[in-house]
């Protein structure tokens, strides 16, 4: 097991290396530099700017310099936001995104599993049909339709919730409700469908029949025997769900004006703020890769059928 973890950990390195290299060269070869927009600056100023950000050096040296800085945990200065480093910008916005993402994932998992259990146990009854229709809605309707519709109904027509903003505003925690619901809805839907399907499958298996034949209470059969086996696919879905939530949060943050990383990401992509885009891609990828790694390991611990050599 330890050997497997170490090997898995080492395999993260080439992925990170490819991500850093790819995004570095992609962005450097893009037409239009960070200083090519709007105002024309005098040649001397431009030269000084280039010098300040080491952009007058050869591409190879820039790459090596950047790589060295990343290894030291320094993502460099932002080209657009004066006097701000990428580290500071990300540090400022990351907690907000993390809060939004974690809450959404937790809600999606908790609600999804609960709904999945209910519809599996009440298969082909009205509870099942209602839950599964809701799940189809969640899978088919994109985030950027659900978000504005929620705003239209609950903020503009009924005036129950604030249209947008963040917990630091006057409206406080109420601002969290709509973004979290919007972001978690598709993943709630997937998880509900998956857990329903896998519970139904496990319910038909021999060991559940054995458990019932032993005369165990139905609640014990479900809680101890069925769920243990049935929830494994959900664990392996957490990796993709997490990456979906990260990209989804870009849209949700734009709709609900959340001061998070996603909002900065879109801005920096449009601004060609090289260092900021790369910093964000690196941080996002690191989170994603680590999450996938954790999910793999947890899965290995939970599923006794998997033996690591």
């Amino acid at each position, binding site marked *: 097991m330890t050997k497997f973890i170490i090997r898995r950990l080492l395999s993260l390195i080439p992925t990170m290396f490819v991500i850093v290299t790819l995004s570095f060269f992609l962005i450097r070869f893009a037409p239009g530099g960070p200083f090519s927009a709007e105002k024309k600056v005098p040649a001397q100023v431009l030269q000084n700017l280039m010098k300040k950000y080491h952009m007058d050096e050869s591409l190879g040296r820039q790459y090596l310099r950047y790589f060295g800085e990343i290894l030291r945990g320094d993502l460099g200065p932002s080209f657009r936001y004066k006097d701000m480093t990428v580290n500071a910008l990300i540090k400022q916005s990351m907690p907000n995104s993390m809060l939004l993402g974690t809450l959404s994932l937790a809600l999606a998992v908790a609600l999804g599993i609960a709904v999945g259990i209910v519809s599996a146990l009440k298969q082909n009854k009205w509870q099942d049909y209602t839950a599964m229709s809701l799940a189809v809605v969640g899978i088919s309707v994109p985030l*950027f339709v659900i978000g504005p519709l929620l*705003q*239209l109904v609950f903020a503009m027509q009924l005036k129950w919730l604030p249209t947008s903003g963040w917990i630091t505003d006057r409206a406080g925690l109420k601002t969290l409700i709509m973004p979290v619901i919007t972001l978690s809805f598709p993943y709630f839907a997937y998880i509900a469908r998956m857990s329903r399907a896998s519970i139904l499958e496990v319910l038909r298996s021999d060991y559940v029949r054995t458990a019932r034949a032993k005369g165990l209470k139905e609640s014990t059969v479900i809680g101890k025997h069925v769920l243990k086996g049935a929830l494994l696919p959900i664990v392996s879905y957490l990796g993709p769900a997490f990456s979906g939530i990260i990209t989804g949060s870009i849209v949700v943050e*734009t709709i609900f004006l959340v001061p998070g990383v996603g909002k900065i990401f879109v801005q920096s992509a*449009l601004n060609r703020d090289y260092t900021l885009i790369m910093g964000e891609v690196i941080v*996002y990828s690191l989170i994603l890769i680590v999450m996938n790694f954790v999910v793999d390991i947890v899965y290995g611990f939970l599923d006794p059928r998997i033996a690591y050599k």
Partner: protein
Amino acid sequence: MSTNIGQAVNEFNQQVAAVSLWADAWRRLRKNRMALLGLWVVGAFAIITLAAPILPIYDYTSQEMTHINLPPSLKSAGSIAIQKVEKRIVELKGLVDGGREDLRPEMDKIRAELESVKADVAKNPKSSKVYLLGTDYLGRDMLARTIYGGRISMMVGIIGTITAVLIGIIIGAIAGYAGGRLDNFLMRIVDIIYGLPYMLIVIILMAMFHKDGASSIVILFVAIALVSWLTIARVVRGQIISLKNAEFIEAARSMGAGTGRIIFRHLIPNTLGVIIIFATLSLPSFIMSESFLSFLGLGVSAPAASWGTLVSEGVQGMELYPWRLLVPALAMTIFLFAMNFLGDGLRVALDPQSKNRT
């Protein structure tokens, strides 16, 4: 057990009529009412968007500044304008009769305006336009824009799926059939690209090469296709590995079939079911990706429109003109619904384990 040699049997060894996988799948799909409904809806969408240039709808780019933000209606734009003025007069008349004498000049002024509006409507041929689904902030017909938006969205979905499937089949088949070092190398690459944050890469590509007009759609295709073939490559590889030692492949090889023939005539047709399921389920996800980018302002650029850009335009001003959001959002949602039902139905229908069962 072996009394029925050479004949199709089900799991109880009962004799059944031999049917091809496709006939069997089609029979099962026809029984699934939701999947069939999905098929009809998808078909209707396809026909409408394909026939858009010959349909009697207005040009989706022509702007009519006198017809901005009109609500959906069966009446012509001119009669809506007249109605609006008449409603105002009735309102004012009520107030004047209720003792607000100071509003009388205002009422008379609007009465005069009504005459001029009526004359205008009679004179201007454009006032006879009927906007079934309303107009947007530049006075463009929402019906035409939604149909043409669907054209681009569906095109992105279809082209994305085709590229993904082609690249995926080729890479997957080579990796699975060759095995060994080549397989290892290709799958390593797939693993590494899998670890990349897909949407972020597409966003970067779009932001970098985003220009006005048609070129942005091409970049969009390239960006989506570049990262979308991974899943299908893995699936095809798995299928090929499980099939390549089957007897029928051995038979083909012993008859002198070359590698290319074995892969393309024997192995890939056997994985077609999986590929079709993947394709129908990934089409909506490509459409969602495209709309997602367009929503962020990184996708299709004006005057072309996709469902994503229409929704994002509709969000601005949705409180006063909700139809601008609801019309494209509804069209898109219905299509995605239908696609998902169809995909689910196909998955059940093409599942080889359910062959010869109802």
